[in-house]
């Protein structure tokens, strides 16, 4: 059982989708319950991963599965090669955790072609999980591209007024980046094959040890970094994000923000940084600059929005800037902060999109000016909204604080000190745009008569929010549960990177690379 646990988790939603296709399309209740059931079971079977203490002691890949998949004589070998370490563990958990919540949020929001939506939702879950667990670049690429199709349809069919523009833009932006990455992947494969180094198909762990010549590293890194930067998204490649977020249905926005954007940051951690450590040194200042610029720019633009959903979308650009800055610090605190912040962003921005969805379902508008004084009419909603707002700002005691603090400390202690100083102002901006928005929507008198008859959250809606609130406080108060399991993996990753970078300056000590490789 444990031997195939990861495959089971990854493909369980897909199996669910196959069965779902046989449910009659008129039976919308059953379709929704079934999809919810599948995502819940996926979450339950993934729980043992989170409680496994092996991640606290070993930074290597666990739950490995390895099968030959495509083998074409002397041409290629692609393997079904999966596994997780303490970093991907939490992203897998985040995915299986968010999906039931996203499914539950569709109960009232999705009313046309429910069957199609649920099928796409489940397909998307398999694709995302597959991308997080893949240790073979070819396999990763397949899942990575597979994610596009369901999200494209979700935005295009169930989205808002401008959905077609947003869907096509989302698709083309992401696909262009990944196509260049594909050429880079092929190049690495042939380079590895030509050196005669031990390799297992497109196995990324073997590629780590490759020591690609720096001239080639630059191009390869740019191809990977470009592709991931679109997904993160980093300024100036972020323009698809506000459109996609604003037009997507609530469940789509939640998944997009909570999980899909993490693909980009995860791509840096798993692929771009450890594969091309030398090139990273060259481009680090540029990337750090873009991260910080993203923080400031995202915050300022968010401040100026009059649509709540757009505001949350731009705040994503800023939050992901913190994640990237933490990762680029290339030290324990920074990396841990970046990864924790990935989870945090998933929880709090996911929650914010749900909240926007709640009021949109009631009023069919998201204009801030249409609201005001909602706190009087919807006290439970107001409480939850406030907590999430604090979490998004990064108030101590909530999860956002832990992530941003670690990321900034990490950056401050690294060579990115001055970037960190500038980035810190982003925290203030976050307080400005979030609190200002909260004030305009929730406080004051009810000026718009339409708002008089608003109902507070239903039981279903409260049930959706409770697990998210739990993690807001859990990560905020006792982050060690999560940090302790990701530390060994981060340490191994950083040693990997540093050893390769040191090797450039002092070619005498390349031995470190091997001793640190726990297999």
């Amino acid at each position, binding site marked *: 059982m444990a031997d195939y646990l990861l495959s089971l988790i990854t493909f369980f939603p897909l199996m669910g989708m196959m069965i779902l296709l046989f449910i009659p399309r008129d039976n919308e209740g059953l379709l929704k319950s079934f999809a919810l059931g599948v995502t819940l079971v996926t979450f339950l079977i993934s729980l043992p991963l989170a409680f496994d203490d092996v991640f606290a002691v070993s930074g290597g890949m666990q739950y490995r599965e390895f099968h030959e998949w495509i083998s*074409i004589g002397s041409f290629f070998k692609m393997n079904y090669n999966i596994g997780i370490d303490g970093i991907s563990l939490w992203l897998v958990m985040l995915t299986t955790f968010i999906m039931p919540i996203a499914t539950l949020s569709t109960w009232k929001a999705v009313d046309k072609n429910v069957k199609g939506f649920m099928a796409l939702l489940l397909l998307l879950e398999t694709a995302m999980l597959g991308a997080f667990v893949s240790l073979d670049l070819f396999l990763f690429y397949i899942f990575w591209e597979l994610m596009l199709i369901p999200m494209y349809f979700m935005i295009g069919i169930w989205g808002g007024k401008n959905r077609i523009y947003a869907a096509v833009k989302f698709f083309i932006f992401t696909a262009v980046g990944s196509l260049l990455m594909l050429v880079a992947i092929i190049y690495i494969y*042939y380079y590895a094959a030509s050196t005669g180094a031990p390799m297992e198909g497109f196995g990324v762990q073997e590629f780590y040890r490759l020591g690609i010549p720096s001239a080639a590293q630059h191009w390869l890194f740019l191809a990977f970094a470009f592709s991931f930067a679109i997904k993160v998204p980093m300024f100036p490649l972020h323009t698809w994000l506000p459109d996609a977020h604003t037009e997507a249905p609530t469940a789509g926005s939640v998944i997009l923000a909570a999980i899909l954007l993490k693909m980009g940051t995860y791509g840096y951690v798993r692929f771009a940084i450890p594969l091309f450590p030398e090139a990273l040194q060259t481009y680090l200042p540029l990337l750090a600059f873009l991260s910080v610029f993203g923080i400031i720019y995202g915050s300022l633009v968010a401040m100026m929005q009059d649509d709540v959903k757009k505001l949350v979308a731009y705040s994503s650009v800023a939050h992901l800037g913190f994640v990237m800055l933490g990762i680029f610090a290339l030290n324990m605190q920074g990396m841990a902060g970046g990864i924790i912040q990935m989870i945090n962003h998933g929880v709090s921005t996911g929650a914010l999109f749900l909240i926007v969805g709640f009021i949109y379902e009631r009023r069919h508008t998201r204009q801030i000016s249409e609201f005001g004084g909602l706190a009087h009419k919807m006290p439970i909603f107001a409480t939850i909204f406030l907590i999430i707002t604090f979490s998004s700002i990064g108030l101590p005691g909530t999860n956002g604080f832990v992530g941003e603090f670690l990321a900034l400390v990490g950056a401050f202690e690294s060579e990115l000190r001055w970037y960190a100083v500038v980035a810190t102002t982003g925290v203030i901006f976050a307080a400005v745009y979030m609190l200002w928005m909260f004030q305009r929507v929730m406080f004051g008198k009810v000026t718009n008569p339409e708002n008089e008859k608003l109902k507070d959250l239903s039981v279903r809606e409260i049930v959706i929010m409770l697990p998210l609130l739990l993690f807001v406080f859990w990560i905020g108060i006792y982050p060690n549960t999560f940090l302790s399991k990701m530390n060994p993996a981060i340490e191994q990753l950083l040693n990997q990177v540093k050893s390769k970078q040191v090797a450039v300056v002092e070619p005498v000590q390349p031995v470190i690379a091997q001793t640190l490789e726990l297999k």
Partner: protein
Amino acid sequence: MENLGQIAMQNINMAAIMPSVVLSCFGMLLLLVSVFSKRGRTTHVAWMSIVALVVTAAVTVSSWNNPQEGFAGSVVLDNFAIFFSMIFIIAALLTILISDGYLRREGYPVGEYYPLILFCTAGAMWMASGTDLMTIFLGLEVLSVSLYVLAGFFRGDVRSNEAGLKYFFLGAFSTGFLLYGVALLYGVTGSTKIAAIAQHVSEMPAVIDNPMMIAGSVLLLIGFLFKVGAVPFHMWTPDVYQGAPTPVTAFMSAGPKAAALAALLRVAIIGLGSIQADISALFWLLAVLTMIAGNFIALSQTNIKRMLAYSSIAHAGYALVGIVAWNQIGLSAILFYMLVYTFMNIGAFAVLVLAGKKGEENLTLEGFAGFGYKRPFLGVAMCIFLFALMGLPPTAGFAGKFFVFAGAVKAGYIWLAVIGVLNSAVSLYYYLRVIVYMYFRDPKEDFAWVKLEIPAVVSILLAIVGVLALGIVPGPVMELAKLAGF
């Protein structure tokens, strides 16, 4: 005289041409059958032609790994020819399955249609197995003449007439080029056999600079590139593809294109192998121009059939990338890609066939608004084919492009691979636009509605199976393609 006859008999070896003989005999038989059939009843001819194709496939495959050379070395049934022959047979099979209902609907239930497809397939098989330029020329003529008739098959339809005539005139010109090239090469090397030409060139390298040799090679290549539809010899494709009956277009875009590529590969790699660097450089340019022109012109099309015509130019460009690479992966990738292309492109055309009604085919983007909701099966099928044409995993289109570009990267043509993938990115836009209309727009009120005919549905299902199976487990077929390389 007697002596000569003996030598010739020994060298004949009918096994080398058995597949095309079988197919041609069936074709002639079916001509007779359709003469004696009641007017307007052709379904049995269609079924018999399917039997013919299945029998031919069995005959063809039986020579796998057992190459047969015949007619004093002017034809050879090697793995290469067999692989391509299977592509033609699959293309013909899928086409015939979608044709019957379509022809009846459009009012041309004429039995001759099926023998023509069979003759065309037989000609294609000749081209793939020809090792003598004259054999290849014969195959090309059989293929082309059948196609001229098929393109103009709807004789009451102006566009179809235009397609037939245009194809005939331009095709005749290109064949003239080809033949002239053969003559010049014969003048220089003293032979029309590909191997003999290659040997002559390698023994006397100076001959490469002979203007006659250069002119001959170029004219020969032009003849093939015309059939492939490569830029700058692509001008005929959009009009002919758009005007011809849709199943014929489906067939034309897959079978004959693959046949021309097969002949081109044999001539280029075996015959002109000694000037590999020049050929690679030339095809580098051709591949880039073909990809760019095909994709960028397709962007502005509003007629789906015409859009697919331009996209087929672009796909020819991807295949040419494999020639540039000039290595085993590149070559095998071309074979694999043409097979994949047959499935995905004929699949897409099959959906178009079922999307229209008599007289007014539903081919404009506008006509496809809300198509996915009105015709769920066809909508999903079209999506699968379009995603394959885009080259997205897990479809076979991705595997095919992956192998082609891998060949290029391995040979060091990284920029060519980059241009190739960027072209794929451009193609996303026009393929996605069809999906946008099918699913993201509201259905029109008056909607052409044709019954889902079982044979056509079978054809679509076969194509879907092909596209997905070759995408998820490309290994075995790619292995075969590798064995089929030179």
